[in-house]
């Protein structure tokens, strides 16, 4: 299996496990844990998309996040890719909040919904 796709699945599995009510993570507050899960969900999506973009895998220049965004936008006349683009954009916004904006208001997110959206894309047979 493509190593990017494999890593994407590992990340989604990790989020699924961490969200189980029986799992107790010591010494970390709820918000920090959820921010960490949002970040992992975003990277699950990032790796799932890059798994189908071999040129981008080899690229050593530029910001891969914005390059993915540009590629998805370019192909977004296709409804299925448009959906991937929207989820990628939204997760990116949330991930920026989670990782870099400690002072910004906390969004009223629902991790189950975010997980469902990312899973739906990660588990697709083919994106493009």
């Amino acid at each position, binding site marked *: 299996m493509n190593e990017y796709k494999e890593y994407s699945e590992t990340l989604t599995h990790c989020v699924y496990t961490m969200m189980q009510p029986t799992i107790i993570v010591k010494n970390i507050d709820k918000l920090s844990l959820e921010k960490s899960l949002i970040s992992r969900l975003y990277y699950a999506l990032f790796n799932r998309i890059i798994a189908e973009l071999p040129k981008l895998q080899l690229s050593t220049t530029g910001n891969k996040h914005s390059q993915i965004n540009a590629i998805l936008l370019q192909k977004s006349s296709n409804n299925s890719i448009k*959906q991937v683009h*929207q989820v990628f*954009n*939204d997760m990116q*916004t*949330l991930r*920026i*909040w989670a990782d870099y*904006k400690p*002072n*910004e*208001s906390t*969004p*009223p*997110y*629902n991790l189950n*919904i*975010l997980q*469902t*959206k990312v899973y*739906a894309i990660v588990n697709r047979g083919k994106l493009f």
Partner: protein
Amino acid sequence: MDIKKFSMSLTLIATLSLHALADNTNEYIDKEQKAIKYAKEYLVDNHDVSVIFKELKKSSEQFNDNVIKFLNSKITDFAKEDSQKTGMLLSRLALHNEIKIKFYKELKKIVKKNKFTKNMKENLILLDHLSKDFKKEIQRFIDITYIEIEAKNNFKALEVIFTGYQFNDYWYSISDVYLDNMVLFLSLNNNGEDIFDTEDKLTKELLSFQNLKKDMTKDITLPNIGGFNFDKINKTHFIRVSLI
């Protein structure tokens, strides 16, 4: 009053509520306006007012830390809590800042002609820059307050139309404030319906509100007062709902 003993002795500390912030901001404004008044009176007689300048500089720096930076982190919460009160606080800040900018402009002319110290001239340049930076920040706060009003209106309207869903809350990213089209993030319970289908239904309705608003506001030009503009309410468009 002995100019050497002049001190504004400001005590503003990190505040938590909008009400407390408004009170403390008013305290800042009153004291700074008093300082400007004294400086004007003493300058007429060509006195050295560097003491007042130092206090104004200290006050502006504290104001930056305690009001501007604080508002920067809380503006969406405050606007959500009470947009009218937040608007009033911002208009007071905007007016006060305009007074300071005009005052520094007048002073620049006086300082050029007179034998004031190098230190005073440097302080004046710094104060002028700080006030201009504050102006940009205040404009951004005004814009965010309008976006908050728009987001809340859309959220309430969707809540009224879609009675089958339980709406919890809404959010938008303030990093997107200057994008033409914004995403309205919603948290709701959709009774197990496909998330993407729910998003499509809500987005369709949201777009119909936006078109209605565009029609209603197309002939309205909002005034530009004191270099501040208030047209964000007409220019803000949420074009998509995303469940998060």
